[in-house]
């Protein structure tokens, strides 16, 4: 395909966790980290802004957010200035859109920044914001705005159909916390033992506290630019955004598209489309960031993305395949489990980690990583979003 290539030039995030800062304070911190990462880029070079946030309209009582963010960041966008909301995939979606804007020639240099302020002013309200995050009229009244119930049902079904064990869910959390231990920007810097995981407070059996990612305040920002601009603005090797896919087959849980809850055909379809469009196969991916909102979700994602056989996610993770040196190191910065999950910022954090891996400057570096993948699910597992990155442009 002729035309322009879009690259991720640099990125940064603020400290994630329970923050004494507003969403727009954190946006400024993340944007500063991002521009400090690429000394050649100043606000005047940026012609587009995409702001990714799901809850800002409810938690921070601000809709039409992009102009607010642009003003605070000293940006004067002339190509695009908009907010993107696809819940947990807001950040990845904004990156895919920025790629399209850059490749089309509409934009040259776009900042994609995500932010969520969850812990304010009273914690109970988060649960009442989550009733707006899934199909409000049909699923929320059944008590599943907060997602553990849905993923506990999913875990039970996976255990029933494939013999997956609770200890294998726990392995996901242990590995991701181990990675996150060396990430000072994440929510947690601690390590877990299998006893910690198995003896943790029960949230919704079979899921305990450490099978669930935390609620987190945070922001992350990246710069997406044309290859030409990327080379002009930075000396680092370009990381190309090859492409991706976003698939949505249903919204209300009753219309679940799989044979059972452990069967995710919408993710298989997203993977098929993303691989087809980029000429990359699962065997080519050196490092992945998969949506570990729950331990069970990472297990199933590894299967449906083609990194292991269907049903074998449990033994696959147990045998260390997602660790450095394994066949697909995953969530190498700590993932959602250890970094936390400020919805709109998560896909951007994932992109930053893949960029660092592909530029050879990650903390938990995968040797010679050349191709990376990010994945998010959104809602009550109703939508899947994949982005594929490479050191080489599309052939």
């Amino acid at each position, binding site marked *: 395909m002729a035309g322009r290539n879009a690259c991720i030039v640099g990125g940064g995030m603020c400290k994630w966790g329970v923050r004494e800062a507003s969403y727009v304070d954190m946006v400024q911190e993340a944007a500063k980290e991002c521009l400090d990462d690429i000394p050649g880029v100043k606000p005047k070079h940026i012609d587009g802004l995409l702001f990714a946030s799901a809850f800002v309209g*409810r938690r921070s009582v601000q809709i039409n957010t992009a102009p607010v963010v642009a003003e605070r960041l000293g940006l004067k966008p002339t190509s695009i200035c908009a907010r993107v909301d696809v819940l947990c995939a807001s950040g990845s979606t904004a990156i895919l859109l920025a790629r399209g804007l850059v490749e089309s020639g509409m934009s040259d240099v776009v900042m994609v920044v995500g932010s969520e302020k969850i812990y304010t002013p009273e914690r*109970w*309200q988060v*649960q*009442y914001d*989550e*009733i*707006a995050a899934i*199909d*409000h*009229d*049909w*699923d*929320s*009244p*059944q*008590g*599943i*705005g*907060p997602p*553990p*119930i*849905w993923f*506990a*049902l999913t875990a*039970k*079904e996976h255990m*029933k159909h494939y013999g997956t064990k609770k200890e294998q869910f726990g392995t996901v959390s242990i590995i991701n916390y181990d990675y996150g231990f060396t990430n000072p920007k994440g929510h947690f810097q601690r390590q877990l033992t299998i006893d910690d995981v198995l003896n943790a*407070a*029960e*949230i*919704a*059996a079979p899921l305990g506290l450490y099978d669930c990612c935390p609620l987190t305040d945070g922001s992350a920002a990246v710069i997406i630019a044309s290859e030409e601009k990327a080379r002009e603005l930075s000396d680092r090797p370009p990381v190309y955004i090859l492409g991706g896919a976003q698939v949505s087959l249903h919204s*209300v*849980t*009753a*219309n*679940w598209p799989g044979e*059972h*809850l452990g069967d995710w055909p919408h993710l298989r379809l997203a993977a098929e489309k993303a691989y087809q469009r980029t000429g990359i196969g699962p065997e080519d991916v050196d490092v992945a960031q998969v949506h570990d909102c729950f331990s069970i979700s990472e297990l199933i994602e590894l299967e449906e993305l083609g990194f292991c056989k269907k049903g074998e996610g449990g033994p696959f993770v147990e045998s260390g395949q997602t660790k450095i040196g394994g066949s697909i190191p995953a969530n190498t910065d700590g993932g959602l489990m250890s970094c936390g999950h400020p919805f709109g910022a998560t896909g951007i954090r994932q992109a930053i980690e893949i960029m660092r891996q592909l530029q050879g400057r990650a903390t938990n570096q995968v040797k010679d990583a050349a191709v990376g993948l990010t994945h998010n699910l959104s809602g009550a597992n109703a939508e899947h979003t994949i982005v594929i990155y490479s050191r080489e442009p599309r052939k």
Partner: protein
Amino acid sequence: MAVSGIPFLEGRYSPTLDLWPIEAKEFNRIHTFYDSLREGRFTTTRCKQCGRVLYPPRVICPECYSDELEWIELPKRGKVIAVVEKLGGVPICFEVPVIDAWIDLGEGSPLRHILSRVINCPPQSLKEGDEVQLVVFDVPSHPMEIRRETIIAERVFFAFEPVKK
């Protein structure tokens, strides 16, 4: 004079923190679903043109985009495929545990599965394979402005409950 700036403090209703749907016919074109629920019937729409059954009910058919739809009955009994009891992090107003089941409405049903809360059910008692049935209950009404007049809109919703053995 001080402005409170917080309508809750003035006793005003705000739907942004309302768990339940706005069901009134003045707001919602599928209010028939709730009217039927009030009579103990579990219904949805079917396309008269192509026969496709749609859940949740709609005003157009997503298959052929016809707007000629009719109401049909859904089964009110099903079997539990998997059940979960949530002990922590439940929305305020819910009692712990919140029990939810993924329910099989049966091979002949136009809607095969549904996720529902299971109420009238002692904790740790519901098992895979158990039979459950539809149960309808009142939920809080809300004020609603219709051409400068405020009415009180009554509401119902549904869950499932164990079928007594």
